């Protein structure tokens, strides 16, 4: 796998040039194709502008890999509206290695949700290992969220918070309904979605709003 290195100490003008181009980026796709030397990431973090490297980034597709876990947070922008998360192709059969789950959980807990409109988590990521970090992300989501798709089980509080978001029109989650919330299918909410042509129904362990 190729490794990219920053050699020497680029001048402030050179870093400004990088920032100008980075500020233009609206969408990016992170995968496992590249690795970076630790000194490279250190230099990137040291020279990070106050607004971050990618202040205009809106759409982030993150294919979780061991090689990008160390720098994916560089792409976290408060203006992110769409985040899609999948896993490395090499983990499709064996699942996510247990030893890097804490790092993934730690990174997930820092996902910016201020302007988040869409959060998609690949069905390849399932199981309860990431239940708590993803639930914390859901709890931080605000009314801007319109789409949430995940097969990771969520906490009761996260599910309850999720289905009460006013603009959530696409939701696919798996797991039982929250045990403590008897008003999970509020009539007003049902009528709201019926009005827009959608329905909310809990079919076994799967809830969907379409």
């Amino acid at each position: 796998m190729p490794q990219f290195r920053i050699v020497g100490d680029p001048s402030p003008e050179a870093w400004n040039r990088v920032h100008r181009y980075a500020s233009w980026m609206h969408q990016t796709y992170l995968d496992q194709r590249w690795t970076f030397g630790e000194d490279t990431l250190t230099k990137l973090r040291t020279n990070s502008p106050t607004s971050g490297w990618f202040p205009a980034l809106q759409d982030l597709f993150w294919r979780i890999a061991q090689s990008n876990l160390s720098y994916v947070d560089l792409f976290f922008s408060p203006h992110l509206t769409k985040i899609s998360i999948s896993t490395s192709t090499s983990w499709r059969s064996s699942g996510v290695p247990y030893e890097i789950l804490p790092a993934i959980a730690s990174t997930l807990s820092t996902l910016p949700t201020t302007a988040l409109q869409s959060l998609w988590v690949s069905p390849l990521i399932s199981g309860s290992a990431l239940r708590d970090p993803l639930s914390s992300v859901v709890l931080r989501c605000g009314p801007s969220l319109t789409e949430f798709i995940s097969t990771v089980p969520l906490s009761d509080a996260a599910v309850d918070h999720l289905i009460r978001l006013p603009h959530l029109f696409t939701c696919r989650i798996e797991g039982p309904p929250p045990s403590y919330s008897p008003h999970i299918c509020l009539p007003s909410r049902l009528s709201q979605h019926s009005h827009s042509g959608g329905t909310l129904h809990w079919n076994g362990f799967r809830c969907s709003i379409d």
Partner: protein
Amino acid sequence: MQTPSVKFDQGSPRAKIRDDLELPVYRDDCSYRCGTAGTVSSSWAGSAVPQPNAMGWKRSRYPNTEAAPSRAPNPQHDSVRTTMTHDDTPLRVFKISELARVIASQVILISKESAVNLARTCRCLEEPVLSTLWETQELLSTLLKVLPEANWDIGGTTGDNTVRGLDLPVEGLNA
């Protein structure tokens, strides 16, 4: 002195005009004329000698806008180097930035290489295509390559195979 003129059949490919007759093909701004066919009139006298630009194409300005040529006019040669007076409707479309962005975004769906080639054809398209290209960058390394070349390096996992300026896997080059 009567102005010589050359007539082309309707539908003659512009590439053929450029390659066979060395007519000037412009890319410096959108004020030039282009088209697929039409009357070509000589306007060489008093204009600058076209110089190959970075793309290897011949470039010319409108007559009487630049310094006098450094050589005496050659009627035989100048009858070929002419200014085209064609319909510039296609370029007027590209001047509408919204449409140019739509075109750029569609070409990028085909391939980024096609988009880069499109950006090289005309200044009208350069900005919208490059903007669209930079809006979507898949590799952090691509971004860091805007650093001076002396400040970055790409190596394989062994550190022995250094490849500069290429987005190719090292093992692929060694194969």
